[in-house]
């Protein structure tokens, strides 16, 4: 009995410590963002700034070399387009590949699956070659387009629609719906949870993307929030509180979205991971 309660207490303690450790970086980020440089570099530890330096945040947006507000706007636009568009494209393609019996469908599916073998970030040179030749450098479409086509999501949607009960579609067919109508009126609306899960994951991926925006968005006007922050981080000027304020600003939208759409994110991870 006693050993049982003591292991239970030990486990509780372990979980508590781990939770603190996992949340600590968020606290540190916020604390540092609100301090001044002197307080940050002082050897004396303070848990919370005695004076709140909110101006670190306003300074961030008024610094002309950072382009922070434009970068945040770009990120929001890119993720805001990529998440719904890529999920919808994958759903449509997944439905067609699962349900519409056209000759050669197996070959097309194989061509989609084959692209999964080539890791996304390794293809940045080839993709740059193509997007660059089409004049996509420093453009919004150049930043967005390659991220719209996610073969993995196609595969997940295909598996989902394969299991979709045919009886429901029969009913729609009797009402005079064609293939496209069946997808748009019946299959698509009933895949809401799936769309939300994969859409939320796509938003996170797109918002946090680094390598491709670094490659294609060379001009400050096409920087994303991550690139602006990274440029700040790897530059030679030392403005520590500003840097942390920048980090807070770039992760705040995602953390907010995360807390709101948590259920879908968890579902999305579970589906995409297990099928992968």
């Amino acid at each position, binding site marked *: 009995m006693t050993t049982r309660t003591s292991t239970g207490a030990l486990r509780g303690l372990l979980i508590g410590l781990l939770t603190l450790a996992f949340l600590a970086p968020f606290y540190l980020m916020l604390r540092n963002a609100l301090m001044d440089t002197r307080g940050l570099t002082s050897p004396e530890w303070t848990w919370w700034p005695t004076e709140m330096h909110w101006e670190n945040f306003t300074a961030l947006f008024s610094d002309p070399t950072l382009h922070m507000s434009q970068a945040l706007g770009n990120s929001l636009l890119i993720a805001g387009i990529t998440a719904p568009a890529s999920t919808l494209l994958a759903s449509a393609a997944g439905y067609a590949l699962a349900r519409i019996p056209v000759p050669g469908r197996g070959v097309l599916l194989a061509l989609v699956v084959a692209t999964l073998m080539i890791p996304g970030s*390794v293809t940045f040179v080839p993709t740059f070659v193509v997007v660059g030749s089409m004049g996509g450098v420093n453009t919004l479409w150049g930043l967005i387009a390659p991220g719209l086509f996610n073969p993995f999501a196609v595969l997940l949607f295909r598996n989902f629609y394969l299991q979709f009960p045919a009886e429901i579609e029969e009913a729609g067919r009797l009402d005079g719906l064609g293939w496209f109508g069946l997808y748009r009126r019946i299959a698509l609306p009933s895949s809401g949870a799936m769309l939300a899960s994969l859409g939320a994951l796509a938003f996170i991926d797109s918002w946090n993307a680094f390598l491709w925006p670094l490659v294609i968005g060379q001009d400050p006007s096409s920087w994303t929030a991550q690139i602006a922050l990274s440029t700040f981080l790897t530059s030679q000027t030392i403005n520590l509180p500003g840097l942390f304020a920048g980090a807070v600003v770039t992760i705040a939208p995602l953390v907010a979205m995360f807390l709101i759409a948590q259920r879908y994110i968890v579902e999305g991870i579970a589906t995409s991971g297990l099928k992968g």
Partner: protein
Amino acid sequence: MTALSDTSTPRSERDGSPAARPRGGPAPTRRRPDLRAWAAFALLAGPMLIGLGVFKYVAIGWSFLLSFCNAHGTIALGTWVGLDNYQQLLNDETFRGSLGQILLFTAFIVPVTFAVSLGLALLVHRVRRGRAVLRTAFLIPTAVSYVAASLVWKMCLFNGLPAGIANMMRGWFGMDAVPWIQTTEPPLYWIVLITLRLWLQVGFYMVLFLAGLQAIPRDVYEAAALDGATGWRKLRRITLPMLRNTSVAVLMLQFIAAFQAFDEFYNLFSSGLSGTGTAPVQTPLVHLYNTAMGAQNYGLGSAGAFVLTALIVTVTLIQGRFTGFGKGEE
């Protein structure tokens, strides 16, 4: 009208009776192209197929040709140089070094992430109340970008100042402060790299394991308990074997993620600020980025992309052979 032509598909294929078609006419055979089906297929799958065609197939094909060309500062197919780029790349010590580094990094990070995320999942799964809150606490770092996390690790946790968190902890044990990122002997920067990635990724894999744990039926454990199995045996004999499919998927995802490491290496090691030294480690992707974007040598960069792709595909296939991945598909 539409309904009529659409019944041509699965149902009439299944029962094969023309009587199923209300308005008679010849039953369409499988060979006959169904124009409506084709149109719907093209409309629904077309955009995706074209997109993958352009951004994957055309891109890779073109880049493959470029890798045999002297394409310096241009992405047009220039002078054909055969295997020169590949030769130059493989003779390049920094590239070979980067391949070694990424293999070492992978060999470290994959088992560590695997063990920690499985351990966390087992811990959280046991908790009766507040499981959702715990899951959130461990999962929320996955919302943070590598850039922001690198900043916290480099400038706050592992900065060289005595007041930096890691150095403060060393102080408790009477140890001197060290510049973590610049210390190469012993390679303390590995601690920075590994903990950073753990913090960002562990929650994601933990959720996968939690889903796997939830799928194990309770009565399996009850039966085992009747047979007198205790905690450790239950874990080895039931839990781990039942998590096999999840484990294989997690390993595969972790391998690929480790091989593609770029963000944290770039943000931790390039540049000034407290990181005065040059990058102690370079991954192949960082090398490729410098070659293609820095030196604008797209021929050499393309060759590097193919060497790296070949390496990843090989490792993935070997891993698939050992763990039997692919059998569990469907």
